[in-house]
């Protein structure tokens, strides 16, 4: 995902802005990292370039 998407994405639970921590980048594409909601403390992973913004109760597919 591109950093500019932070303008539209938010925490799916409380709709608060998210903070980005980048682990791996390829040009302006963020390949892996973590999105954190400073309001509720929930974290959302960026996996293989795709932000996983599923609420935690739907993120249980370990082998998916």
């Amino acid at each position, binding site marked *: *995902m*591109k950093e500019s*998407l932070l*303008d*539209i*994405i*938010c*925490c*799916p*639970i409380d*709709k608060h*802005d998210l903070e980005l921590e980048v682990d791996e980048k390829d040009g302006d*594409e963020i390949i892996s990292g973590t999105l954190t909601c400073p309001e509720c403390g929930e974290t*959302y992973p960026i996996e*293989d*370039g*795709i*932000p*996983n*913004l*599923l*609420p935690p109760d*739907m993120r*249980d*597919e370990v082998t*998916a």
Partner: protein
Amino acid sequence: MGVLENKARARLFYKYLSKVYDTINPFIWNDEMRDEALELLDIQPDDQVLDVGCGTGFATQGLLQYTENVHGLDQSIHQMQKAFKKFGKNDQVRFYRGDAERLPFKDNSFDVIWSSGSIEYWPSPVDALVEFRRVVKPGHNVLVVGPDYPRTTAMQKVADSIMLFYDAEEADRMFEEAGFVDIEHHIQQAYPGSPKAITTIARAPDE
């Protein structure tokens, strides 16, 4: 209670269904019907469009004919992997994993919201529609395509046991409850006798 009301089950179901998904659907939905539905919307080249339940990217393809700013959201990565093959992962479309009933987008983020072949799997359709109204800009349109409720008793039993089907009256109730105005429905059918799709366009009220 329908078997797909449990979201975890729905995801498992999709994991296997995604292998054949482009050919299986509770209603018949083809290019022609998709393009007809797209014409009902007035999508401008600079519009930001969200495709909820984008799945394998069938509608996404159509939306890209109108604007380059298409965002695809789905709960299942398996479904989206097919879409990645069509459009690239980070190229033509911005993809997200997320829940239709708890959208990870800020208020008033999109000019148009499209969702086809997804509503029948949502446990609480009105909750998802309330979210649509929140993230679409005031005065702008959403379009939802779902399976029209069958007219014969045998098919109704099948429908009730599998997933959500609804008629125009029920669609009115859901969209009104979610706060939409100017709600209109179009029943679309591939050929006589095939399962019908119900396409609803509704507008978020002006501020």
